[in-house]
């Protein structure tokens, strides 16, 4: 790693109460489950065993992310920093419905443009994409170094779009990067070549069997 490089590890939060209930959590706040805490501890142990170090641990302010980040930061002997740039997508009135709810599925519009707001007042694909770009920019405005970020599935997808140069498509048809709880993606940015090197997507081998 050279001194101009940014080295980014994006972690999706551990299992939350909302995950277990299969809800659209969006910006609603849910704590981790006990299983979630074990997943975070397993990742924390892995980071230590592999000798991974970071200059900063940054987290979304929502409890499920903050609790995950606190467990990781404690193992690294660090203190996490909260930043609203890493918040999950606002799903409007879909919160806190279940995405398995048959009434919800029946009432969902048949086709979404990237400009349409989910749940009437939520963030459109382009709103979220714009936040993804801003989140990337907020990292590159820092000094080069190693950053560990705990965030959420939908935003992490748009951050990956922003890094790779992918544009949102209608009806959520674009590529998806599914992240398991505590699954992480990792990338390095070399400014002199404007090159993002994608090193891992959804690595969650530490969480197998939990």
């Amino acid at each position: 790693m050279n001194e101009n490089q940014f080295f980014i590890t994006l972690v999706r939060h551990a299992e939350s109460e909302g995950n277990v209930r299969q809800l659209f959590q969006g910006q609603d706040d849910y704590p981790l489950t006990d299983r979630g805490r074990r997943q975070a501890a397993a990742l924390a142990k892995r980071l230590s065993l592999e000798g991974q170090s970071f200059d900063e641990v940054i987290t979304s302010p929502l409890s499920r992310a903050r609790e995950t980040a606190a467990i990781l930061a404690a193992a690294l002997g660090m203190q996490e920093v909260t930043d609203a740039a890493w918040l999950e997508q606002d799903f409007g009135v879909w919160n806190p419905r279940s995405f398995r709810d048959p009434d919800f599925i029946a009432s969902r519009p048949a086709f979404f443009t990237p400009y349409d707001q989910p749940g009437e007042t939520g963030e459109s694909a382009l709103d979220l994409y714009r936040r993804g770009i801003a989140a990337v920019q907020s990292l590159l405005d820092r000094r080069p170094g190693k950053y560990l970020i705990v965030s959420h599935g939908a935003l992490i997808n748009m951050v990956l779009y922003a890094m790779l140069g992918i544009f949102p498509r209608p009806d959520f048809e674009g590529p998806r990067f599914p992240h398991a709880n505590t699954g992480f993606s990792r990338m390095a940015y070399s400014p002199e070549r404007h090159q993002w090197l994608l090193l891992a997507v959804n690595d969650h081998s530490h969480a197998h069997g939990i």
Partner: protein
Amino acid sequence: MESEAVYHLTMLRHAESQGNAFQVWQGQEDYPLTARGFEQAQALASRWRKEGVRFDRLISSPLTRAADTARAIATVLNLEIETHEDWIERDNGVLAGTHRDERPPMPDFIHTYMPVGEKGESANALFLRAGRALHAVLDGPPGRVLIVSHGGILNMAVYAVLGIAPLAHFRGPRFAFGNTGFASLVYDPLRGQWRVIGINDTRHLAAIGEPPIWQP
């Protein structure tokens, strides 16, 4: 909801070759695997057997480093190898098999239509070939397909999957493929949607004492 008829593509980069060990830009020059390369391929084959991974098809580049990697896996998982020219590595012209220290100076700017190494494939030529290779797989039946190929062409195959176009002068995103690192991609034709399940999975290498590569 995922339909039954999906394509699970595993894009695997060959194990360590002698060209890798000499740190040359191999291109279409042919190099055998090193002893360590054979161990890596064996470690992956054992991992997949333990995990109960199965494939319906195994497609390999014709170059020895890919074919030998494919054979190690085919033997353990009991598969037939189909060889396809379109999965061969980039033609890098006069740079084939050269070490960084012995290469002629590069042009100041290599645009996306310019052949590399005077007569090799341009970035766009490689991108188009990767798209054609991918298309041929999707012309076949849905199922689990293992592709054993090379870092350069596999990067362009991932571009084709994600809808990224090549940039000039080796800029633009890169997808890491360590030796025997693989990408897992799922295509659902009913939604026209790709899912990226993993990139550069090399977890099996821990079994032969190679430390996890967690930063470049």
